[in-house]
């Protein structure tokens, strides 16, 4: 959807990029403090309500988790991870959603012009009318976020409530969170707030506490405070996410090389025709004997 007042700064499959760069906005971010999440799932409900997503049929798989993974109609899922840390049981809840990368792999991978865009405030969004449902964004995303809907043939994911945040509201999930574990603001403010919280956690004895803002994807618009930041895998987060090398290779090397090759071969063939001309069969009757080989 086009958002009034928000300029698009990156657009999928657009060679020259977009946006005038005249109006700049501070990047926005959501801060998730997993240490104060109580797993109440108010954010899940708020997300479904605000985005007009239907009720999801829950799946019981031996935990409190609503569904095994996110779906095309369920963009915000609290993951209930059970782990053993330093010899004792740890119940690690994390809000799984689109991370709104500064360098989005989904956008890099997408072949449909304008189907995935990044606004000047950093939010990564999908335009369903441009999406062709090829699912290459799934390969591009290091966080396994984009979900394909067989019903609509389109990809969908969290929009960081771009329709709310553009008019000065916080995302629905942040509004609903009862413990104050979710925060929303400029990325700068969220970074300092997150670092403050990490300091408190360290003082409370969580020596490995940290803020998850992976540099491999240029940082994310969703910051996560982890008590065990040395082991992000415990929370289902990749240690060092990047846009897959294969996607970079295909887009940045193979594609220009292929275009160059095609152009070179066409030029070469035209040159060959000019230099050597057509190879006409000889006219007139054949000679009596075959020539020496």
């Amino acid at each position: 959807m086009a958002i009034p007042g928000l300029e698009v700064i990156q657009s999928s499959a657009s060679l020259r990029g977009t946006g005038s760069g005249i109006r700049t906005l501070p990047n926005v971010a959501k801060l998730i403090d997993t240490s104060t999440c109580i797993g109440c799932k108010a954010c899940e409900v708020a997300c479904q309500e605000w985005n007009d997503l239907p009720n999801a049929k829950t799946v019981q798989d031996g935990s409190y988790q609503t569904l095994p993974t996110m779906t095309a109609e369920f963009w915000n899922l609290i993951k209930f991870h059970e782990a053993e840390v330093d010899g004792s049981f740890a119940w690690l809840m994390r809000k799984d959603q689109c991370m709104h990368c500064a360098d989005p792999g989904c956008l890099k991978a997408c072949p449909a012009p304008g189907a995935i865009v990044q606004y000047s405030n950093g939010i990564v969004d999908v335009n369903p009318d441009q999406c062709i449902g090829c699912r290459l964004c799934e390969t591009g995303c290091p966080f396994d976020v984009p979900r394909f809907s067989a019903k609509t043939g389109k990809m969908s994911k969290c929009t960081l409530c771009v329709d709310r945040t553009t008019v000065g509201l916080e995302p629905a999930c942040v509004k609903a969170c009862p413990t104050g574990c979710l925060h929303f603001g400029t990325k700068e403010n969220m970074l300092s707030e997150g670092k403050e919280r990490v300091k408190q956690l360290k003082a409370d004895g969580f020596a490995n506490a940290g803020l998850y803002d992976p540099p491999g994807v240029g940082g994310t618009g969703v910051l996560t405070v982890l008590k065990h930041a040395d082991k992000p895998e415990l929370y289902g987060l990749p240690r060092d996410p990047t846009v897959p090398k294969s996607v970079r290779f295909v887009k940045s090397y193979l594609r220009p090389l292929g275009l160059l090759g095609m152009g070179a071969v066409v030029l070469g063939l035209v040159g060959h025709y000019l230099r050597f001309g057509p190879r006409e069969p000889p006219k007139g009757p054949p000679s009596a004997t075959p020539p020496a080989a």
Partner: protein
Amino acid sequence: MAEPLRAVPAHSTADPGILLAQNQEDLVVGDELVRFRFYTRVVHWGVALTFFLCLFTGLPIWTPIFGWLAPLVGGLQVCRWLHPWSGIAFAVFALLQFVHWAGEMKMTPADKRFTKLGGFLAYLRWETHDEEIGKYNGGQKALFWLSSLASLALLATGVVMWWPEYFSSTPLREASWVLHDATFILFTLMIFGHIYLAIAEPGTFSAMVKGTVSKAWARLHHPAWYRDVSGDSRR
């Protein structure tokens, strides 16, 4: 000189070569030789047309530089739907062609002389005069094997990209993407050359349309085939 194996009705005004080329090949008709019978031509045109359908629906997905091709089939959404299905159609024709030609595509010593770098460069300078070149030269045979392999690779990687829910392994999906792109680029370059030679060697295209070629053409490009079919060893 081999006699026509099937009588042509005396009252027919149609080209006798065309009539005979309906179900026979490798025979002499007047001043021409029948090179490809109807079935051979249908299968090769099937491969050619479905190849270009795949190419024209795939290129706009590959890069927006070729986005202008998408409206030819109704836009990028249609490309995304049509590309895998035209890929299946291409795979079917490629398989038929493989079965039809595989037996005739064994490399002979003359073919190996042809495909060596020096031999191929001599051919590109139009300097090849190898009396042992049969119905297909080394380059055509190499193209046959390489394109068959490429078709198989495109099918396998294409299926992975088409049905990611059944191939959820990320490394497999990434490898398929890279391989699908690399293969199609090399395949397309080979096809550019293949089509160019059909234009740069006049008389070739008629083998794909009427099914026949002139004796002079056959003597120049495929001397051993000409000798076998006509029994005439003159140049």
